[in-house]
């Protein structure tokens, strides 16, 4: 009975800690946003559009509560933000949160396919690089990947577009309408992450090949491919999972740039457009939602990694 209560308390404690982390993160983010927005000057002028007379400005100030003292504005802003109410978009007139919500599925789709492509490319490639097969091809590939690590994803994207879209009409480059339109954007997202992951897997595989259990397998006459796939590979992947975890966070950066280049109707492009249009409600909504999502995904991948490799859990505790 006592053990049960103990367990319950610890679960409660860790959930509490988690929420505390999330809340403090959001608080900082939201406060930062609030003051940044106020720094740009009078939002009423931005809202007033073409007219500019003082009466209209005064009306606008009352309507949006901009004539209240700053701390009142801040707390009402916080209260609203807690309910995910960021107000109405100054550009579109709809609820900011609705606009963001509408575009999240596209971004999630891109994130998923991008990550999948990343893994699909890095894992076989990395494993191959970690073996002793075909030394010259391996070395050439290795150089290629090293260079690709330095080539920013946006450069890669532009080349892909030039080749496959403009010259050879293989793929569309417009938004998200036709069936194959996800291919190039996912490839671009993957190119931000794949070189590094492939190299780390390669190192891990080559090191794993020297481990006792693989040497044993070799001594017992196992084929090279079996040594690699059945013995070295699983442990190498364990080592790489930590990296995959951090890559998920870096995914956001790649997505913003990719969405802009390909006109993908997702949240990243919305952010850039809203910032340039000074549409603050939408900017705030995007930043807060993204922060929450990134946090969730980070936490999720941490848990998955811990399950896969309990050693890391022990290390974290220490």
């Amino acid at each position: 009975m006592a053990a049960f209560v103990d367990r319950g308390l610890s679960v409660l404690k860790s959930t509490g800690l988690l929420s505390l982390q999330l809340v403090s993160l959001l608080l900082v983010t939201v406060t930062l946003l609030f003051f940044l927005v106020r720094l740009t000057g009078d939002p009423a002028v931005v809202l007033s559009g073409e007219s500019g007379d003082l009466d209209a400005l005064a009306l606008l100030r009352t309507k949006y509560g901009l004539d209240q003292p700053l701390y009142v504005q801040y707390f009402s802003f916080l209260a609203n933000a807690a309910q995910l109410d960021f107000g109405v978009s100054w550009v579109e007139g709809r609820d900011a949160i609705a606009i963001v919500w509408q575009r999240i599925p596209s971004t999630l789709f891109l994130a998923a396919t991008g990550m999948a492509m990343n893994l699909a490319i890095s894992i076989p490639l990395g494993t191959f690089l970690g073996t002793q097969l075909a030394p010259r091809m391996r070395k050439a590939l290795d150089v290629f990947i090293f260079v690709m690590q330095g080539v920013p994803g946006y450069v890669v994207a532009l080349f892909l577009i030039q080749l496959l879209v403009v010259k050879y009409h293989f793929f569309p480059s417009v938004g998200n309408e036709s069936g194959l339109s996800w291919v190039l954007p996912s490839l671009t997202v993957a190119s931000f992450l794949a070189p590094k992951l492939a190299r780390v897997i390669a190192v891990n595989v080559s090191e794993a090949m020297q481990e006792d259990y693989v040497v044993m397998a070799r001594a017992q006459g196992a084929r090279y491919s079996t040594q690699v796939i059945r013995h070295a590979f699983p442990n190498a992947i364990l080592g790489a999972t930590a990296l995959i975890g951090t890559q998920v966070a870096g995914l956001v950066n790649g997505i913003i740039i990719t969405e802009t280049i390909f006109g993908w109707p997702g949240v990243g492009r919305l952010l850039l457009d809203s910032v340039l249009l000074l549409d603050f409600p939408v900017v705030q909504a995007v930043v807060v939602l993204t922060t929450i999502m990134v946090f969730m995904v980070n936490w999720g991948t941490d848990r998955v990694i811990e399950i896969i490799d309990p050693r890391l859990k022990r290390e974290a505790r220490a």
Partner: protein
Amino acid sequence: MLLSVLLLGACDRDQVQVDGAPLPAGSSEPRIARVAMRRLPPAFADIAAHSGQPSIDIWPAFFDALTFIDNEGQTQPWLTTGWTLVDDRTWHFKLREGVKFSNGEPFDARAVQSSVDNVLFGYGATNLVRNSLLPTVAGARIVDSHTIEITTYAPDPLLPRRLAQFYPLPPEYFAKVGPREFARKPVGTGPFMVTDWGVGIVRTRVNPHAWNPPRLAGVDFVEIPDMTARRQAIESRQVHIAQYLSPDDIVDLGAAGIRMIQVAEPRSRLMVFIVKEGSPLKSVLVRRALNHAVNRKDIVKYLLADAPISTQLGIRAMEGFDPRIEPVTYDPALARRLLAQAGYPKGFKLDVDTLASTNTDRLVFEAVAADLQDIGVEVTLNTVEFERWRANLLTGNWKGDMYTWATGIGPLFDISRIWQYLSCDRAKPPFCQREVSDLINARSVEMDPQRRAQMMATANQMLLDDPPAILLHELMAVTGLIGVKDYDVQNLIVRWDRLDLE
């Protein structure tokens, strides 16, 4: 290996294959045209919330205005058939008979009157349209079923022109659903009606009650903000019409079998001087010198596919335009002499608040900056986003010494639109030219067209002697067309009813 990829992508510029592939799914219905737009109206179809572009790029497909202004700058009847002046401030407009809204409601004086009431005096905390489009209208009164009387606060010779952007609304439907719902599901008298307003796409189909029936079954408007993506959309035949492409695309896309046309935008580009105390721009000589330093011929020839050079404020189709005025000569030696005369032989520095929405804009401003550099004026182009630029325009709080402007004289085709921002009566004008200001003010209430023209000519001459800006060029919009014909544009308003597929 990277290099090989690069070279592969870069080598040979053969003709792009004309693949003749049918348009992708979504336009499998045969007589629907797809249009790639730069931007969809941000406030949907809320006519009180927004005016000008991008709204007029798409609203005329389903909304009709009371009048329209043709390419010669003349006001023509549309939903009105004619108008008469009762006195200085009272107009009678005769309305077209037999017109219905797409939901069956009749279009009559009652509809116009309730629209005026709603838009000018009704919903919304601020009346943006009132202030920018119809600031002079005091009210509307029904004379009979198809005659409406409109009164103004002061004599307003431009009233019929203003009504070219006023779209009457169906009173019952509007009262039933309210402004916000109306904006999402608009009902108008236009050739098409909106069937779906989604994120990034607006679908319209034939209006069964149209008084002006279209030739097509419908038009789909797709929002593609990025110019390169728009170009790629038409190159790969995913759309029939791509608006606002680059002048540089004319040759390439033309070679690829796409018909490229240039449409005159009622806008001209200039760089306005902001005169502050102690600024070199205070001197008339300096301002003239800067105008002489810019090589406009090369700029329009190489960057703008020969757009017309600005000779005066406004554009060719404007009321009061003087075709006899020659463009300012390109004379860097003269410019340098003028600068020395003004006391700046070594030049000086200038910060320009720059709004460059497209690549071509950027190139033009960089070319101008380079020209000024050649006579010793060091120019820094500080990029400003559109919203911030607009806020600065309204309040007059510019950071730099100049700002860039692509001024529209539409929808009225009159200098008043530009002048409201340069006039001395503003809270913070860029700088004040009292005589010109007074003259233009007087002109705005002058009802006699002869006297108006005379006043404008005098004002133009004054502005040439004491330039408020570096005049550059008139804007031409480049549009790509494939598979369509009869694409007719009157001052940025497309005749969607006339459009047809080949």
